[in-house]
């Protein structure tokens, strides 16, 4: 890297830039005037610019706590954060320009933090957890996963990591409060699931409301703790004192939560008496001197935090979905719905999971021999603690009962059986069962997949997707299909009992995506009318197998788009 040229360029652009050396380490120094004083920014030489060139703030501690500046005390420099470096595309072919662009960003950042004290304070609070983690935490400090709700002052039971666990939930300390009863019993963090964990004491969850900036160093932690406790509103403080007075222990965990403009921040401390004997949690400076205190990293585990963080919606947690068909498409749908935040899933399938299903099904080999619905229930609940699953060993046609409407917001049928699906649809119509239904299926050879959403009392129904366009009769095959009817599309490896439709897990997944997307948008209230969605895949394999595609396939250009389901020739929709 030609730092001479870079320096010359910066000077030419009006920067006070010089090349220096510190203990044999060459660096580029740039001096800028900020608030009547000179600030030194330093860039240590590198061989290539694979990211924006970094500048460090010399003597960062002099400026106090600065937002987006992490003071590294042992070297006397502060690391300046100017955003996500990875997402910035750097002109490594013109390094002088890269340095100039980066330098100006660093200068702007430092200048704002130093000159605008109000903004600086807000940013310190907004990035509370980052600043907490950077300023006070060490890698060896305990990491606690906490299943708790926000804004509840309450007792917490803490368990040690499971012995020998190097990763996963089991490798963390686990904190459990009384407000986590909505977690599935099959989840690893379910209150009932503490097998293999030994108790690690008790503690408290303390809501703080609006936060102040975090301590700027680990040494300030004790003072910060006392200051924070004493700043609690009188009512909250007395509640805490009352709660604390009931328990004596030789260790305590205190987890705080507070509001920042970027959400609720969770963090905590672990306290241990310097001497022997059990005591109540210290709340005053005079008591704290007998305790050692260290910070803990807290990962809170409640649906209000975890669901939005993963893109799921809290508003779906009270929705109940009946999913019939837990095959390769249905299995994917179940996962997608749970991951989207659906609170209740009833999974229906009469089949047993077999080794043949392994590669295109979401279930793992441990569940071979189990009912697909049961296996899916277990796996969904294990990964998605706030989705309650019920499994039913049954077929679609066995569900023909009027009471079906009462319990579900949406029904999804993923069985790939046009006969059963039409029979069931007709049952719903004839019995005035007002249940929104999504029917979804994948076609063989990767040509595509489809989903229809039939919303009662809106235009369009499943039978619209079955109108035979050639004679406008009630067709037997869907008019959405991309492969023509009456072709030999199944394969078998072992005779008649082993017939299967060839498609990949990707095809099943794509189909599940359109059905899941339809489900979520409908349950969110953004789809008022019955509609249909298809995805169109490649026809190479189908053509190789000598199969014919439909006109719809050949002209279709609306993959993933929601199209009206209504067909003016559907006699179900036009019999008024």
């Amino acid at each position, binding site marked *: 890297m030609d730092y001479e040229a870079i320096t010359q360029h910066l000077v030419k652009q009006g920067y006070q830039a010089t090349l220096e050396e510190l203990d044999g380490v060459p660096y580029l120094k740039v001096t800028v005037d900020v608030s009547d004083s000179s600030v030194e920014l330093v860039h240590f030489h590198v061989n290539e610019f694979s990211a924006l060139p970094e500048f460090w703030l010399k003597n960062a501690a002099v400026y106090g706590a600065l937002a987006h500046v992490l003071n590294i005390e042992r070297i006397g420099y502060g690391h300046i954060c100017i955003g996500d470096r990875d997402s910035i595309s750097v002109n490594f072919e013109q390094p002088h320009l890269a340095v100039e662009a980066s330098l100006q960003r660093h200068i702007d950042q430092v200048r704002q933090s130093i000159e605008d004290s109000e903004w600086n304070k807000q940013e310190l609070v907004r990035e509370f957890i980052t600043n907490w983690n950077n300023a006070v935490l060490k890698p060896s400090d305990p990491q606690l996963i906490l299943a708790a709700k926000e804004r509840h002052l309450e007792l917490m039971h803490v368990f040690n990591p499971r012995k020998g666990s190097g990763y996963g939930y089991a490798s963390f300390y686990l904190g459990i409060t009384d407000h986590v009863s909505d977690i599935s019993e099959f989840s690893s963090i379910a209150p009932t699931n503490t097998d293999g964990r030994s108790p690690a004491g008790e503690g408290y969850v303390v809501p703080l409301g609006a936060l102040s900036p975090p301590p700027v160093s680990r040494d300030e932690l004790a003072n910060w703790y006392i200051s924070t406790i004493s700043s609690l509103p009188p009512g909250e403080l007395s509640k805490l004192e009352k709660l604390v007075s009931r328990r004596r222990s030789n260790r305590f965990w205190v987890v705080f939560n507070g509001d920042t403009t970027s959400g609720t921040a969770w963090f905590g401390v672990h306290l241990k008496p310097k001497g022997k004997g059990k005591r109540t949690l210290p709340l005053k400076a005079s008591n704290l001197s007998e305790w050692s205190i260290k910070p803990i990293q807290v990962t809170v585990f409640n649906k209000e935090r975890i669901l939005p963080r993963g893109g799921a919606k809290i508003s779906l947690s009270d929705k109940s979905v009946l999913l019939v068909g837990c095959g390769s498409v249905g299995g994917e749908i179940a996962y997608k719905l749970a991951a989207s935040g659906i609170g209740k899933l009833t999974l229906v399938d009469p089949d047993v999971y077999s080794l043949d299903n392994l590669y295109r099904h979401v279930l793992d080999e441990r569940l071979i021999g189990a009912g697909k619905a049961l296996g899916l229930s277990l796996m969904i609940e294990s990964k998605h603690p706030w989705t309650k699953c019920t499994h039913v060993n049954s077929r679609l046609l066995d569900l023909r009962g009027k009471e079906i409407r009462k319990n579900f917001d949406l029904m999804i049928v993923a069985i790939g059986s046009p006969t059963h699906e039409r029979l069931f649809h007709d049952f719903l119509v004839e019995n005035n069962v007002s249940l929104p239904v999504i029917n979804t299926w994948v076609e063989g050879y990767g040509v595509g997949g489809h989903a229809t959403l039939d919303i009662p009392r809106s235009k369009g129904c499943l039978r619209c997707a079955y109108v035979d*366009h050639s004679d406008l009769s009630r067709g037997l095959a869907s008019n959405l299909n991309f492969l023509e009817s009456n072709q030999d599309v199944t394969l078998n490896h072992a005779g008649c009992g082993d017939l299967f439709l060839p498609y990949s897990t990707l095809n099943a997944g794509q189909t599940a995506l359109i059905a899941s997307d339809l489900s979520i948008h409908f349950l969110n209230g953004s789809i008022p009318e019955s509609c249909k969605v298809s995805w169109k895949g490649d026809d190479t394999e189908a053509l190789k197998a000598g199969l*014919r595609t439909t006109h719809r396939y050949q002209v279709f250009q609306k993959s993933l788009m929601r199209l009206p389901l209504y067909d003016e020739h559907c006699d179900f929709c036009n019999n008024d």
Partner: protein
Amino acid sequence: MTIQQRFLKFHDAIKLSREDDAYKKAREKDDSVTSDVKKAFHDAGYPVIEDFIQGSFAMHTGVKRKGEDFDIDRAVVIDSENAPDDSVKPKIVICDEVLEKRGFKNAQVKTPCVTADYASENLHIDYPVYRKSGGAYELAIGKRGSGEAQRYWDRADPKGLKNWVVDKSGYGGSADAKVQQFYRVARYLKSWRNEKFSSDICRKLYSIGITVMAKQCFYPVMDDEGRPNDLTALKNTVSAMLTSGYFINQGDETYVVSVTLPVTPYREIFHNNCKNTGSQFKNKLESMKRKLTDAIAEEDEKKQCEILKDLFGDDFPDCEDAKKADISDKRRFATAGAVGTSQGA
């Protein structure tokens, strides 16, 4: 009722096929006569090696005609090695040994075939006789009293013509549905001919000529969902028929129509048409095109229907209030007992 429903109902009314109920007795008669022909040819020393329906039945373009006989074109094929040199001889066997003995009126040996009417069944029957060598067919030409020069076996391709008409290889996806639309368009045109022309002209506008023109000019019309649009397909076909060089200007705005058979022997189909036939055909096609264009542009379904009823006559469904439900149409079930699908999950 939508316009497509009306077209399909119209098609139901005019369609004639071997499977048609109305045609059941004629079909039984045909089977029975064919059986007698086979016996008579066997006795004569040239057994029938093949027989097949040709003409509009085979091409799926047959239409019913009020007050007219049902037509049957039954080709009988004998082996060239056994066939008599005299091409008229087997035709006389059919006429004398089978048809007359069975009570057919007006049984005659005509140049291309043996023809007869079975009055009680409204059946008009044509028996072309072919001899076959390898895959090549030759048609028995000549009638009673024809001189040697008018009696011969002439190269023909009866199956080639049928295959050409029913060919769907160029239609892309949903080819079955598209060729079905072609059959309907051909039937609409033939039904229109029967409605709009005097019997004298009508007789000269051969069905095979209209079918060949339609086939050459037809392009399937479906929307992106695969829904056929017969009105637009018919209009496009008619437009193309008018601009494809079939009508040859004879001066003074008179025309003759000229269409070549698309297979062996590639002869002129309208070999004996005159200016009057050609001009009327062209003028009425022009009128049809205008009316179909008007119908497409018309937003009021009732008025649209009236335009079409004027074109096609009483067989086209009545133009009741468009909003009035047609229960008989609305309870239509699939005609197949089962259909294999590509649906899975």
